[in-house]
């Protein structure tokens, strides 16, 4: 069987927080949720977006770590910081283009999503992607994604001129080789159309 891949489809997210609650139940960091669920702008919309660690091929968090505390496993999973090494400097927190690592003052180290390594390393699916009711987060083969989804998965990101490849894929609505992010405003090439009108009053105008 093909490799199981973590795939995010932001357009499916319903903001229910099942991922947030389930992440907290993962044995390697029980009691602390590592997934970020962003409410985009609640006043304007109910849109939400989940963010797990993207597990970069060449992780920037590890590159900038002065204590060499962030390790990648042979199967490409970028781990939380090693407790004996982490000096809590938060270089990784600042450097990550996806905003994933967080410094946890309680344990005095950087903690982040490790793709439920205790589960995925023994063939189970990560907690968040298993429970996700909308399957905005899924853990399956790329063949299955191609068979069942409309969009196109990509794991290539261009931040200006810098290219980043990640273990985690995201769904794009149409053919595009990479997610292009030029400015920190977050507008990507994958969303060329303006955001949809989520103002109910506007829908009723002219009544």
């Amino acid at each position, binding site marked *: 069987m093909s490799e199981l891949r973590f795939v995010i489809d932001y*357009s*499916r*997210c*319903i*903001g*229910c*927080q*099942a991922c*947030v*609650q*389930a992440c*907290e*139940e993962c*044995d*390697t960091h*029980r*009691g602390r949720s590592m997934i970020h669920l962003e409410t985009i702008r*609640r*006043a*304007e*919309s*109910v*849109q*939400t977006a989940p963010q797990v660690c993207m597990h970069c091929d060449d992780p920037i968090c590890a590159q900038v770590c002065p204590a060499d505390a962030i390790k990648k496993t042979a199967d490409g999973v970028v781990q939380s910081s090693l407790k004996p090494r982490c000096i809590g400097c938060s270089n990784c927190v600042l450097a990550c283009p996806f905003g994933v690592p967080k410094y946890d003052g309680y344990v005095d180290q950087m903690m982040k999503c490790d793709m439920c390594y205790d589960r995925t390393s023994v063939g189970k*699916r990560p*907690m968040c992607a*298993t*429970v*996700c*009711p*909308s*399957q905005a987060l899924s853990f399956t083969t790329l063949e299955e994604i191609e068979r*069942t*989804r*409309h969009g196109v998965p990509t794991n290539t990101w261009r931040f200006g001129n810098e290219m980043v490849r990640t273990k985690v894929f995201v769904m794009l609505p149409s053919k595009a080789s990479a997610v292009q992010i030029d400015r920190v405003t977050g507008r990507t090439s994958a969303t060329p159309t303006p955001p*949809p009108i*989520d*103002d*109910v*009053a*506007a*829908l*009723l105008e*002219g*009544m």
Partner: protein
Amino acid sequence: MARLPFPLPGLIEQFGPHVNVTPPGGWQSTGEPDRLVQTHCCFCGQQCGIQLKVKDNKVVGFEPWEDFPFNRGKLCPKGVKRYLQNEHPDRLLHALERRDGTGFVPVGYGDAIDRIVSEIQRVQHAHGRDAVAVLGGASFTNERAYVLGKFARVALRTANIDYNGRLCMVSAGAASKKVFGVDRSANPWSDIPKADVILIAGSNVAECSPITTDYLWSARENGARIIVLDPRMTPIARTADLYIPVRSGGDIGVFNSMLYLLIERGWIDRDFIANHTTGWDAVERTIRSYPPERGAQIAGVPASMIVRAAEMWGPARTSFLLHARGIEHHSKGVDNCSAALNLVVATGRIGREGCGYAMITGQGNGQGGREQGQKADQLPGARDIENAEHRQHVARVWGVDEPTIPHKGLTAVPLVEAIHDGRIKALISFCFNPTVSLPDGNFAREALERLEFYANVDFFLSETSRYADIVLPCALMEEDEGTTTNVEGRVIHHKKAVDPPGEAKEDWRIVCDLAAKLGAGDKFQFSSPREIFDELRIASRGGVADYYGITWERIDREYGVFWPCPSEDHPGTPRLYEGNRFGHPDGKAHFQPVEWRPAAEEPDTEYPIILTTGRVVAHYLSGTQTRRIGGLVAQSPEPRCEIHPKLAASLGIADGDFVRVESRRGAVVVRALVVKTIRPDTVFVPYHWPHDRSANNMTSRAIDPVSHIPEYKICAVRVLKVSRPTDAMAAVPQQAGGLG
């Protein structure tokens, strides 16, 4: 004398709701559990499969159950966190008796049973059998629902038993029975992704039945177009192909005008109508007065939206209708559903793959809970309590004379009104928190205060239990065994994970003990829920909801069995009406002509805004359980009033301000959530909280004439900016109805 025996803050301090944040044994890794128990979530009608981790007779965590076909491991936050109930510090471990001035004191279980029975006998002797009422719940297993209905009819011989499914599924059920002759979703969920067009009417799927989302998105991936009717732009509505922000109570305008257009453009199936239906002429006549302009006026939306909806629904090859409380919680709830079902019947798209409809059940056993005889008008097997043949069958199974079975009694809202006006003097309630969940909460609380005697059975001291003379502690779902029937009509098996704590007992055992003490022990000689199920199978045999061929072994082997299942070699019936055979004696579907009418209370100059109520994803029903679970309370600590910025600005309200939302009946003070995702003529307050945060303080007791469902989805309110409350109830914890 059921007034509160002690001031509320003191009761809250003693009995909660407190929040249980930490799993048994702390957050450290639990290591290998002693066993994994394959069972189901108890927190809505989806009944997702889940595995509970058990260690040292404690539920210590969960593991997704990916083999169960309905949800394949998926869970919402309630399912993830449900395991935190068992070892909850608020669990009731002993029977309690009220003591004025001090609250509640523990009493022995036997003494509590004796007291309840002597009070029942006193009241029935003095005021007649019907002066004692029973209220049950649709979170009950089928076995508990069955034994409670039998208890009321055989041991108490009172007509007055009803259940909280009256607040949930009865409009949908009544409409389905009228049109198709059967009260059940017509299709399994596996049909949803096969539909070309899906109409979702009055269902906030993302929050109220989250697992269904993946079915909808799968349909979308397959090219389906999705139409959503809702006064709020919910997460499903946001990405729908067509979102119609219908004014609450205006749904018939959309449905009837869609049908008008289907007729006009030839998108109805005249052959199907001629061969398999009755009543079309009356519908066609009625529909003539619903051109899209009129429908649009009723629905409060542009006519172009209705035209688009008809253009999507009309020519489709396959279609699926999903409806829920948004159209059902109305004094015209049955008509709303019938008008929607007319769209299904007129196109003949039912009874085959990808074609049909479903009502999205709200409560855990919303489907099975209404079939086993705890409903005022039904006997087991979804039999009619006024049908002589049905009565005879059940009387034979029960070993009683048919005339001794009472006739139809009062439904939930009139039953509480009868308590209020003194016709009903004593009440035994299970699995029901009416002070939070009934409309017109102040009236409901006043009614409870007037009872001569009230016995309440619950696993926590709920807001309603506080009014009781005797409280009996009972078992959670995972501390008992039994079956429920999920949203699809699939009968499934809840397994026991651990024993109930202290002197808490399974509800069915409490019922049997009461029956024995009342002298009906020979009819309640059950030593396990399995024995109850086996009697239920026989009682339901030949009925509409026929469970006779369903055994616990089959359920485990087949991942559930769909009723009707008349014999053990019958495969069960995932999809109803195949071959266009409908449930009425004539085998046809019966069109129902529907005229729109206004709500019982429309906005006016004094109360100019529509209030609509509903759920949030982190909580279940009245919150007795979920307002005690740490992660869920953190996710939704208190209710907020959703209000559009245009309306908010006109009232001088900014996001986060405290607002008083008041109707003619009562009020809440909550924070405002100013959002563009709601109609500007409507505000929304979720209903899971008690006291001054209870949305049902404002809702009205108006009920549908057929289903008797209350009109939760529309009443008239005004909204005022106020300063932060400083009273005693504002100071209690948020999960208890206070403000953070």
